[in-house]
């Protein structure tokens, strides 16, 4: 029992919780928990306060954002009305901005925090280094990314007019 106590002192519960959280993210589906450590090493956390803008439509995208806690709204400028319309809300466990991982193109929407939100950022350069240093993880992420993009494309096509 004492030995277990020592382990609870040595182990950082916060990190273990983060690893558990990453296991639930669709982008990392299929990556073993032990390998997720390398993914966690590549992520950068940051907290956004309510109302803070994460990026604006037209900004060059360089990172993908995973929502750890809180809520993010994605809005887009409607060409007809010239008004910002909320197109989606991103909840814990979901992610957005994945286009930045494929090409450094202008963002297609604005993202802002609806409440105090903690996000993990995955930068393109970190993902690329993961592809080369840990190809096993890289292949899984690339395949998941392709599946997700395909699903989003399908959703656009199948959307009723």
């Amino acid at each position: 029992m004492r030995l277990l106590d020592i382990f609870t002192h040595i182990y950082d519960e916060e990190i273990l919780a983060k690893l558990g959280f990453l296991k639930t993210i669709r982008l990392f589906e299929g990556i073993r928990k032990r390998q997720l450590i390398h993914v966690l090493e590549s992520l950068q956390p940051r907290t956004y306060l309510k109302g803070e803008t994460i990026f604006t439509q037209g900004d060059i995208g360089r990172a993908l954002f995973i929502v750890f806690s809180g809520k993010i709204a994605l809005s887009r400028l409607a060409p007809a009305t010239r008004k910002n319309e909320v197109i989606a809300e991103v909840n814990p466990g979901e992610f957005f901005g994945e286009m930045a991982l494929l090409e450094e193109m202008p963002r297609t929407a604005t993202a802002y925090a609806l409440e105090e939100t903690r996000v993990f950022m995955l930068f393109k350069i970190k993902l690329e280094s993961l592809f080369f240093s840990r190809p096993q993880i890289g292949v899984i992420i690339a395949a998941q990314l392709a599946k997700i993009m395909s699903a989003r494309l399908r959703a656009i096509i199948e959307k009723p007019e």
Partner: protein
Amino acid sequence: MTTKATEQKNNYLQFLLPAFIGLAVVYFIVLAKNALFPFILSAALAYIINPAITYFEVRGIKRSYAVIALYVVAGATLFLGVYLLVQFLSTELQSLQQTWPSYAERIQQFILNLNAKMVKNYPLLESVKLNEKFSHLLEAVPQVILTLLPALTLLFVVPFITFFMLAGGSGIMDYLLDHLPARNVEIVLHIASRIDASLGNYLRGILTEAFVIFLIAFFGLTMMELNYSAVIAILIGISSLVPYLGAMVGAVVSSIVAYLQFSSFVPIIRILLFFTGIRFFDDWFLQPYIMKKAVQLNPAIILLALMAGAELGGIWGVLFSIPVTCIIKEILQIAVELQETEFRWKPKPEPTRISIPYT
């Protein structure tokens, strides 16, 4: 109109505090640059060691425990290493102490003979007074060694400061990050990740390279039965931190020692071949493998950086010149890219377009 003017005034006012803090920091650095030096060294050391701590941290072990464990293990290894080295070196140093006067005399004699021959063939060289200059140089050697002594205090101060920097982790960085304007976080982190990727790879690469060269030199010179092989190998290892210097220093020092020890040119040729081999091995195998992900610097730029470093900061300037050049190169590259993308210097990149629809 008034509201617009007030808004503009507020816009300028928001930069007042950061500008004031920035200026104060620069002024402080200028005033206390000598006191800051151990902190710069410690920060560099902490930056190099940090991945080892992160390795354990992301595996769930608390950072403070990881740092303590690393210090205990590194301390024990260092103690053992130094103990063995002192044991090994003490005999070498003792023998050097005994043989140095005769070596010095032989070096001086060699120079005198050389000078006499050269002056005989080329009388113009008499005005250069090579022998006088050389005796000055020999006298200056102990003085140079004495100037290195204050650097020894760094050996105690730097690990101490590094410990607290490592234990504190990314606390300061996280604080700064949390207080940056939210919209700029992505770009700032993008720049930081790029500098970190290239500089980190360079520093870790050059340390591995220096260690491998030290091992090869040590075993090679020991096998050639050269005296003071451990001392020379350490010298080569340290000088390998500066590009191109390691093998050159090794070849020169080993050749002198070999000449004094064997009084023949055959071992010198063997040594020169050995160091040429090291140079090629370094260029063809070690560097392409270790440094493949680091910043690629043109040899001319390296030379310029080394010379500028020496002029600005002496021996420490030389040591820091290449990492600083790496940072400058990466920043310049990012700046050009940003000019092109953010300020529309170049037309917007066209997204990939495919005519066949999704099926």
